């Protein structure tokens, strides 16, 4: 079993390394003139030249890469400060928001999907499906704006930003996070509930569900003990992949609600052309997402007897 995990970990590390190469290419190799993109079209050529030299553009590519990696996360250009102490708290704040979203999204999505499946064809099924489908087509910035306008500006029930004043208690912080979380949940609910529905329907139509029913087991038992165990397993993988979209949505929501998470950090870095910061953020996000997928993969393997037993041999 340990070998299995180590192998997965090893593969993930290779992918992580590849990811760093891609980010490096995007940030420093592909742009014709990194210093120019940082300073903008109006800067003097001499200033650009100096910055280029500072950034090490004239050095061989491999040296540049090594410099970057060994000094990771490096120094932010716009803040003129080490990136680490800025990045880490931002990451944690985003984690808070993202986790909150997941805590609401996952149970809601799964319950929605299962209820749909159990009542396939009936009005409740159609309602959940249509609601899910419509919500997922509205980009976060659209729903976010609508929510702000309605609930924060007009009705005044909830705050406009997501950042609670420093020193606020847990529940106050939560109140500030409610509005930002809603667009995130809205967008992903449709997909998760659909996957849960499909998986559950498949499980209910399976031969083993037939066996269970023909044994005389009550429907509830067939659903809980037999169908759901099998249908919810793949949902783990689905949720892990959806985290990618969640992160994308997180960026928009953080910008909209002025929340100092890693999304807003990345956005600012992008508009300010702070390449080092941008690279650091993107790599961190990528690494984090890979971690999530890895954990989901291992979790799935542990829960699926076929794979678990094979790995243990």
């Amino acid at each position, binding site marked *: 079993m340990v070998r299995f995990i180590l192998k997965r970990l090893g593969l993930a590390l290779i992918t992580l390394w590849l990811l760093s190469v891609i980010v490096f290419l995007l940030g420093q190799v592909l742009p014709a003139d990194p210093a120019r993109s940082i300073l903008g079209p109006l800067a003097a050529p001499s200033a650009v030249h100096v910055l280029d030299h500072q950034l090490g553009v004239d050095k061989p590519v491999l040296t540049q890469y090594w410099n970057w990696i060994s000094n990771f996360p490096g120094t932010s250009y716009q803040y003129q400060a080490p990136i680490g102490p800025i990045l880490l708290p931002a990451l944690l704040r985003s984690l808070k928001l993202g986790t909150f979203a997941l805590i609401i999204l996952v149970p809601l999505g799964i319950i929605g999907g299962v209820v749909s499946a159990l009542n396939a064809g009936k009005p409740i099924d159609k309602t959940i499906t249509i609601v899910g489908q419509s919500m997922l087509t509205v980009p976060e910035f659209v729903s976010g704006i609508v929510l702000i306008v309605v609930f924060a500006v007009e009705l005044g029930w909830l705050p406009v930003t997501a950042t609670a004043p420093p020193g606020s208690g847990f529940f106050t912080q939560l109140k500030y996070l409610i509005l930002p979380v809603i667009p995130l949940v809205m967008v992903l609910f449709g997909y998760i509930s659909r996957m849960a529905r499909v998986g559950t329907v498949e499980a209910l139509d399976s031969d083993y569900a037939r066996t269970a029913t023909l044994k005389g087991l009550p429907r509830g038992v067939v659903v809980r003990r037999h169908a759901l165990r099998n249908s919810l397993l793949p949902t783990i993988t689905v949720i892990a992949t959806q985290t990618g979209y969640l992160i994308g949505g997180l960026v*928009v929501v953080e910008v909209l609600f002025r929340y100092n998470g890693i999304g807003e950090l990345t956005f600012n870095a992008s508009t300010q052309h702070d390449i080092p910061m*941008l690279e650091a953020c993107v790599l961190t996000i*990528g690494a984090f997402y890979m971690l999530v997928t890895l954990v989901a993969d291992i979790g799935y393997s542990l829960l699926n007897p076929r794979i678990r037993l094979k790995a243990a041999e």
Partner: protein
Amino acid sequence: MSIVDIPVEDAGALQAGRSGVRQEVFRQLLRSPTFIVGAIVLAIWIICAIFGPALAPHSPYAQNLEGINKAPSSAHLFGTDQLGRDMLSRVIVGSRDILIIAPLATLLGTVLGTVIGLLMGYFRGFVDDVLGRFVEAFLAIPLIVAGMIALSTLGRSNLVIIIVIGLLFTPLIARTVRAAVLLERELDYVAAARLRGERAPYIMFVEILPNVFAPIMVEFTVRLAYAIFAVLTLTYLGLAVQPPSPDWAVDIQANYGVVPAGYWWEVLFDALAIATLVVAISLMSDSVQKALEG
């Protein structure tokens, strides 16, 4: 006694009424209300995109500083914005960019993804492992985030958006295609082809590809909806097309600030346009998926 004289097996062997799989799929689609609704809405927007300037009652760029922030009226069905420009015209013409960029990006991703998926699925082994690492690496970056870094360093142009989205769709589509190819290659017709001495490109593109067309179609339509989504989001974030171009997301970004003042029409119609387009694509993609599965 030779076999020639013995009566042939009957024509009743044909399955009743099936004149061909493709016609069957089309017929089913045309009968599906969701598909028709989606197609109609999409068609409307395509017409807007192509004939925009001709259809628009005013020029989307024409400013009228005396008529700013006017509510919807018979002269301006969607009202005017902060610079007095007609919202209706801007909405109509705003469909153009998105309907060019998103499909092109999706097409790029689909073609690349199909090729890579075929290679990975057919050859497996070393090729699969190496390409797989790249696929996973690209998959690890959320689209919006990749868009941010690419647009920032490579410049804000439609070409960059198309390439970035296309490249980031590639691994997603490659993954689906690979899974389908893995299943197909185990079927005996592939073995029969090898026994005829067919080479790998022939087997991949002539034998296997037609059979994995269905999942590719589904992927295309699903990704298209997300491409629209992503382009709009990137535009909203100010990373893509800039004002004064009429673009739904641009307008929302620009006019969002005045909504509390009560000028809701400056944002709502663009939002509705976005919603209807994405819904239309989603409806169509769902119907396509159902038709190809059933």
